[in-house]
């Protein structure tokens, strides 16, 4: 129960942060990516503040044996930089540049521009489904 409450609460906090920071505004996001034009550095401040808080959280995490409301930490362990990581990030960046929207803001935008957000999300799920199709094929053929 507490876990469910925290999951919803963190989602609300995250969505509020996206709206306050301007990350839900495609014009602001594309302004950050528009280095050759009228560059809007606001996103640098968003990232700096968020990363600073997360750095403290990672410090705290290293002192904890287990999370406060779960049995254990389940965290990424991979350290290798492979083609998949780079190619995936590259594709994501192209999509991000076209619309000025990434996954968090897409869901947050449902609150204000539901039609536009839904079109983007339909594409998002289609892209994820394509990945799933190919990754499960890979598993079977291995």
């Amino acid at each position, binding site marked *: 129960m507490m876990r469910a409450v925290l999951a919803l609460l963190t989602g609300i*906090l*995250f969505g509020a942060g996206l709206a306050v920071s301007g990350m839900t505004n495609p014009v602001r996001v594309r302004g950050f990516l528009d280095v050759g034009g009228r560059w809007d550095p606001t996103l640098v401040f968003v990232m700096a503040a968020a*990363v600073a808080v997360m750095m403290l959280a990672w410090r705290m995490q290293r002192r904890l044996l287990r999370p406060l409301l*779960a049995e254990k930490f389940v965290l990424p362990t991979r350290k290798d930089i492979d083609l998949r*990581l780079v190619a995936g*990030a590259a594709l994501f960046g192209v999509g991000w540049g076209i619309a000025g929207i990434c996954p968090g803001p897409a869901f947050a935008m449902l609150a204000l521009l539901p039609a*536009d957000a839904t079109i983007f999300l339909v594409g998002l799920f289609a892209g*994820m489904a394509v990945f*799933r199709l190919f990754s499960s094929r890979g598993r079977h053929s291995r």
Partner: protein
Amino acid sequence: MTLAPAWSTLPGFPGADPAAGLAGGALIGLAAALVLIGLGRIAGVSGLAARAFGLADDGPPRGMAVLFILGLPLGAGLVYALTGLGLGAVADWPYLLVAGVLVGLGTRLGSGCTSGHGVCGIGRLSARSIVATIVFICTGMVTVAVLDMLKVAG
């Protein structure tokens, strides 16, 4: 329209809103920190979304993913209701759809997006996340420059 107080300006960058950026960023960081410390997970929205909508076999408990994703429009809606904050122009629907496909495929292939890699991963000084973030910011910048040149989208 922005949430910025009159003093939130940055010399040389009339469109920038550093105070709103810092405040919103701190909220995003706090949310991700609570997910890590409280639930023991990375607050990566692409991974949570894939899990919530049944498009990933591994990841956090599905209920947790669904509730987190549900919270995103609730939190943003709350801010919009309290501040009257608006959004700028959104791309036409064909661009939105194509962008969505690229973002969906790219984030699954690259194991994360702006939140998982950009906020949580960089906060952990993960080399994978730092590389991923540099790559997606660079291809994003190139994309905007190319579209600008062709005078389409945006």
